[in-house]
């Protein structure tokens, strides 16, 4: 199971790098077309750039759930025991899981809603964008499930193991 999740995480990392590189292209085309005669003035460049950007934000947020790098505040003292730390992580990940499930449940309708719409400039079916939310919900759930599973196992084992 861990191998499959690792693979999925790696895939997201590659996708993010590719999208960031691709994002440069439409904006460069936009500048080139304004200042030179090399290419015609496309109108789709702005929209393509925006859609790449939305995917970058959503994929980046999925990656950050796995590596635990979403910004958080550190005011409460850290629990001293491994079991206490596992409990406090369970609370955090449980809360995040609620949001993940909201994304899954309402994201399904959101994606369907996208099916009925086309984008203004390129005529792209908006499903291609809206689907990022249920997908993010699923990815969050998988990554959080992995963490929650590990902490439950740790608590069951009597709180020994990693601190």
């Amino acid at each position, binding site marked *: 199971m861990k191998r499959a999740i690792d693979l999925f995480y790696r895939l997201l*990392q590659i996708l*993010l*790098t590719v*999208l*960031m*590189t691709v*994002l*440069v292209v439409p*904006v*460069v085309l*936009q*500048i080139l077309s304004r200042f030179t005669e090399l290419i015609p003035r496309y109108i789709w460049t*702005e929209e393509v*750039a*925006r859609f790449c*950007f*939305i995917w*970058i*934000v*959503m*994929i*980046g*947020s999925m*990656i*950050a759930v796995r590596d635990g*790098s*979403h*910004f*958080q*505040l*550190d*005011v*409460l003292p850290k629990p001293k025991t491994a079991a206490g730390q596992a409990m*406090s992580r369970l*609370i*955090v990940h449980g*809360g*995040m899981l*609620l*949001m993940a499930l*909201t*994304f899954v*449940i*309402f*994201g399904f*309708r*959101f994606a369907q*809603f996208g099916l009925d719409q086309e984008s203004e400039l390129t005529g792209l079916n908006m499903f291609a*964008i*809206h689907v990022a*939310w249920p997908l993010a919900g699923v990815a969050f759930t998988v990554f959080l499930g992995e963490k929650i599973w590990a902490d439950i196992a740790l608590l069951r084992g009597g709180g020994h193991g990693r601190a």
Partner: protein
Amino acid sequence: MGALEVALLLFGVFIGLVILRVPIAFALGLACIPVFFIDERLTPFLLLNEMLKSYNTFILLAVPFFLLAANLMNSAGITDKLVALARTMVGHLPGGLGHVNVVVSMLFAGISGSSTADAAGVGGVLIPAMKKQGYDAPFSSALTACASVMGVIIPPSILMIVWGGVISVSIGGLFIAGIVPGAMIGLSLMGAVLIYAKVRKYPVYVRASLREFLRAVGSSLLPLMTPAIIVGGIVGGLFTPTEASVVAVLYALILGVFIYRTLAWRQVPHVFYESARFAAISLFCIGTASAFGWLLAYFHVPQLFVDTVSRFGGGVTSVGLIVALSFLVIGCFIDAIPAIIILGTILAPLANSVGMHPLHFAIIGVISIAFGLVTPPYGLCLMIACALGNITIRDAMRDVLILLVPMLGVLLFVILFPEAILALPRWIMPQFVH
């Protein structure tokens, strides 16, 4: 439910979750969910829709690009050139390397739009160098963190782009308005370094000759042209801010890969990945913060706030103080971007009601929220600088508080004298500033 009850519910759930260490972006979204179920006209579907709407903005694309440009410059070792230049300029003053730190931050601020990139780039080079020369580690880290605040005040600035995109103010105008307060913060920090150097007897460099200075200028001329290209391009109407940010990326790539050859092609994908990841984490907050802000507006919370405050009367100055104080407080606890969206939405009608100029309001907001980058418990730049100095945040606190005094003085000046801030944008781009 009335505005007050909704505001208490939203902020109560949000604060509770954040204290429990739920990430800020998630806490903002989760706080919205109960409210969506209270009113039958609302549904959590709107959370997703508001997120999509907030990301679907061309202007925000500038955020990952400016971050990428800064990271590329860092990876290409541009900071070393800026350090060499700053040393010939101010190295001979008492506390030489401290002044170098401030000046490099200022120069870097003109190249990048991100304070965290500034803290990481400048701190990575100068904190070890300062410690080696006998500067105390807490002072070195505190100074690096405080100086890096200029990253988002001196143009270009990611926070100004977000502000301009969300609250609809001219970004070119904002950039120009940031120059004077940014320079004042730099000078005030240098004043503080002078006092520190006298008290703690910090070392100085010998004064550089004019030739050495000119040589240093020559070798850092190309990176120093970045602000002229970006800000000049935007103000002169050549590029939109997003296009300017891409030009900055291409320029950084050309400098690093082809001219200085300090950046290998195989490093580039990693820099792209790290920039995209960090930008995505900050920007993901924009989505949930926008939904949070939308709910506040839907239940007329900003209006309640305006009505309550205006009962006490007061003009531009007192509202300026309220704006600064609110941003300073919230900046201690959450990231700058969601702070702008949530508080900006609440405070904009108030600023408007007393006739405060939108640029003045924005500059007060951006400076106060930038100070939040060095105030614990949540101060990203302070965290970075302390990690680089191998000290805890607690160790650096005393020096941060001392250095914040002159910086708060600058903020007070900005609040009291709007004309000093508005003069430059009025002169350079009168079409955007009435």
